[in-house]
C-alpha cells in the first residue's frame, strides 16, 4: 500500500479492515487445518459405529459426543470440513474457469457471439440460485460430484458477467490497442494481455462465492441430495440432528458452529481481498 492510499482510507479504517482480514484468515486456516490433519490425528473413525454408545453426550472419550449411530462427532465434523472445502474449491474453480472463458469471449468477440453467450447466462441467472442447484441435482441424481457440477453451473453466469464487463472496459485501453498493433493474435491478447488485467475482481468474487458454495452444499446435503450416507457432511449432519434436538442437541451444535466459522471466515477474507483489489475501495 502506498502512502497516498493509506492517507485516503485513514488509519482507523485500515486497521479495522486488516483486523477483519486477519480474523478471516485465521478462521479459514483453522477450517483448512482441521480438514487436512483432523481425520488423521483424531482417535475415532468418522464412519465407525458403536451401537452401545449412541447419542453419547460430550465426554473424555468422545470430545464432541456421538450421533444416533454412535459415531464420533468430532471426526465427522472434521471430515465434513473436507467435503465443504472440496465442494467450495472445485465448484467455484469450475465456475471461475467456465464463466471467465465465456465472459472473455463475449466481451472480446463480436456482437452475435456476445448476445448468444450472455442471453444463455441470463437464462441461468433467471432462476434463484438454490432452486437451480436443486433442480440440477434432482435431475443428475444425488452425489457429491453432481453437487459440485450443480453449484458450478449456478455460479458460472456470475463470473461470465463480471469478466465481460471488465473486458469491455479493458479492451479499449491503450495497452490492448498496442498489443493489437504489434500484431498479437486474438488468443494472445485475450489471455496474455486482457486476462491478467481483469483477474483481480474475479478472484475476489471467487472468494466470496466460496462461502455461498459451502452454504449451498449444506442445503443440498440437508435435503439428502448431496453426500450420501454414511459419509458425513455438515448439511447431512444437521439433517440427522433435527430429530434429536431435544435429547441430543450437541448433534446440531457442532456442524452448525463449523458452518458458521467457515462461512464467516471466507466472507471476512473475501471482504479483505475486495479491499485489496477494488480500486474504488482501496
Amino acid at each position: 500500500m502506498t502512502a497516498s492510499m493509506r492517507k485516503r482510507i485513514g488509519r482507523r479504517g485500515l486497521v479495522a479492515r486488516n483486523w477483519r482480514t486477519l480474523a478471516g484468515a485465521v478462521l479459514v486456516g483453522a477450517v483448512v487445518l482441521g480438514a487436512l490433519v483432523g481425520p488423521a490425528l483424531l482417535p475415532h473413525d468418522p464412519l465407525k459405529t458403536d451401537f452401545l454408545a449412541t447419542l453419547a453426550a460430550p465426554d473424555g472419550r468422545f470430545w464432541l459426543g456421538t450421533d444416533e449411530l454412535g459415531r464420533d462427532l468430532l471426526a465427522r465434523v472434521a471430515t465434513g470440513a473436507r467435503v465443504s472445502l472440496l465442494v467450495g474449491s472445485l465448484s467455484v474453480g469450475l465456475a471461475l474457469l467456465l464463466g471467465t472463458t465465456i465472459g472473455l469471449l463475449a466481451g472480446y468477440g463480436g456482437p452475435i457471439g456476445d448476445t448468444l453467450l450472455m442471453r444463455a447466462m441470463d437464462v441461468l441467472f433467471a432462476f434463484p440460485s438454490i432452486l437451480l442447484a436443486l433442480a440440477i441435482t434432482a435431475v443428475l441424481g444425488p452425489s457429491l460430484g453432481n453437487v459440485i457440477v450443480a453449484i458450478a453451473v449456478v455460479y458460472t453466469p456470475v463470473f461470465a458477467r463480471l469478466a465481460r464487463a471488465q473486458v469491455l472496459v479493458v479492451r479499449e485501453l491503450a495497452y490492448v490497442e498496442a498489443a493489437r498493433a504489434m500484431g498479437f493474435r486474438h488468443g494472445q491478447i485475450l489471455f496474455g494481455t486482457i486476462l491478467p488485467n481483469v483477474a483481480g475482481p474475479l478472484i475476489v468474487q471467487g472468494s466470496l462465492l466460496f462461502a455461498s458454495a459451502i452454504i449451498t452444499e449444506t442445503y443440498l446435503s440437508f435435503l439428502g441430495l448431496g453426500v450420501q450416507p454414511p459419509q458425513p457432511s455438515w448439511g447431512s449432519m444437521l439433517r440427522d440432528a433435527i430429530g434429536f434436538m431435544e435429547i441430543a442437541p450437541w448433534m446440531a451444535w457442532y456442524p452448525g458452529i463449523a458452518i458458521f466459522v467457515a462461512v464467516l471466515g471466507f466472507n471476512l477474507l473475501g471482504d479483505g481481498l475486495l479491499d485489496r483489489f477494488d480500486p474504488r475501495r482501496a
Partner: protein
Amino acid sequence: MITRRTLLSTAAAAPAAGLVPNMLSRAHAQAQTPRRGGTLNVGVVSDPVTLDPAFMASFFEVYVFGTLHDTLLRITPDLQIEPGLATMTAVSPTVMRFDLRPNLKFHDDTPLDAAAVKWNFDRIMNPATASLRRADLGPLTSVEVTGPLQVTMTLSTPFAPFPHVMGARAGAMVSPTAAQRLGADFGTQTVGCGPFRLVRWTKNSELVLERFPGYWRPNQPLLDSIVYRPIPDETVRLTNLRSGALQLIDLVPPQAVAGLRGAANISLRERPSIGWNAMSLNVTRAPFADVKVRQALMYAVDRDAINRVVYFQTGTPAFGPIPPAFGWAHDAAFKPFSYDPARAQALLREAGVSTPVPFSITVTNSPLQIRLAQLIQAQANQAGFRAEIRQIDATSLITVLRGKDFDIAWSPWSGRSDPDGNTFNMFTAGGPTNFTGYASEKTTELLREARVSSDQTRRAQLYREVQQQLAADAPLLFFQFDSIIQASSSRLRWTQYPDGGFALGDAWLES
C-alpha cells in the same frame, strides 16, 4: 364402541362402588359426560391417494377409512369381529348371510339396502373396474339379494379370513348413486356411510370432514368436524401438537417417546401393531438369488440393535410375519437367527461367492429409514458384504418394488387383522405384493391350507410352519414388530387401533 362401552360401565360402576369423587382421576370424572362439538385437527404423514375404498392401496388411507367409511362387520381394537352395518350368519362354511340394520343411509341420503350392497360387490368383482379389492375377496363367487335388507354370499371354498375382509376395505359400502354420477371423480369426492362425510379436499393442504347426522350408531359422532393436515416431517408434526395447532398426530418419532411419556397436556398412546418391518430381498438376481447369501444376511444383522438404535425400544425384534398382536397365531419362541457375523461369513464361503459381496440397500428419504440403512450397512460390512445405500423418494418406492429394481428394499407391512392378510399376498408365487420374486411350492401350499381351514389351532400350526419355511428360504429380512405410536392433546378421548387407523366416531374433546 369399546371406549364408549368402557366409559359407560365406568360411569355406572363408580357410584355403585361408592367411590368418592376425589378418588376418581380427572379423566374418569370427565369421561362420564362425552361432549358434543368441536373441531379436531389431525396431523398425518401424507394425503391419501384416493378416498374410494375400491382403490385404496396406500397406508395413508387408514386415516380416513374409519371416519368416512363404515363396513359390514367391525374389527375391534382387539381384533375381534363384531356386527357392523350388518350381522353375519354362516349358513354353511361357504355360504354367508348378511342382515343389514334398518334405515341405513349413505351421506347423500341414498338408502343403504341389500341392492346397494350387491351393487358394491358387483362393482368390485367386475374385472373392468380393476378394483384392488377383488383379490381381497378370495373365493367369493356370488352376492345375491335375498331380502330387502338381506344378501347372501357364496364362496367356492371355505375362506377363514372372510369376516376380517368384510370388516376391512372390501366390506366398506359406498353410495351407488354418487359413484355412478361422479365416475372418475369419485376417488376425490367419495360418498360413504361412515360417521363423517366429506366437505372438501385441498390436496397437500387439508382434508375436511363434518359430522354425518344420519349415522346409525347412537350418540355418534360427537365431533363437529375433522381436519386432516398432511405434514411429512415427524418433528414438525410433534411441534404442532405441542403448540396446540393439532390435537392428534400419527407416527410420533420413536426417539421422542420417552420424553412424551410424562408430558403435561399431551397423551402418548402406544399399542403393538399388527404389521411387521422388513426389507425385501430380490431373489431374482445376484447376489440374493442364492439362498446361502440370503441366509448370511439374516445372521449378519443384529435385530436387538435395530430395535434399540433405530426404534428406541418401542417394538420387539421380529423374525417372521406373525406379530405378537395375533395372540393365537404368534409364536413367541420363534427365533431362528441370532446375531452371528462369523456364521454369516461361513455361509458366504459355503456359497462360494467372492467377498465382500456388494449389494445396495434401497430406502426412502426419511430419517428413520436412513438410520436403519446405515445400521444394516455397518453390520453387513462386518460380515462379508459391501453395502451401499440408495435413497429414493417415498412415491418411487412402489415402482422400484414392483419393477424388482433393488437388491434389498424397505417394504414394511402395516398389517391386517387376520394372519392371512400378513402372508398370502406376499409369500405365494405371483402374489400381488410379492415384491421379492419368492416362489416356494411348500409355502404356497401351507398358506392355501391355512386360508381354508376353519380350525384355529390347525391354522396356528400352519402359520408356524410358514414362518419356519420363510426362515429357511429367507426372502425377507424381518427385523421388527413395531408399535403404533400416536399422540393427542390430553383433552381428546379416542380409541386407538392396531393398524394405525383413526375411527373417530366415538372421539370427543373435553371442554
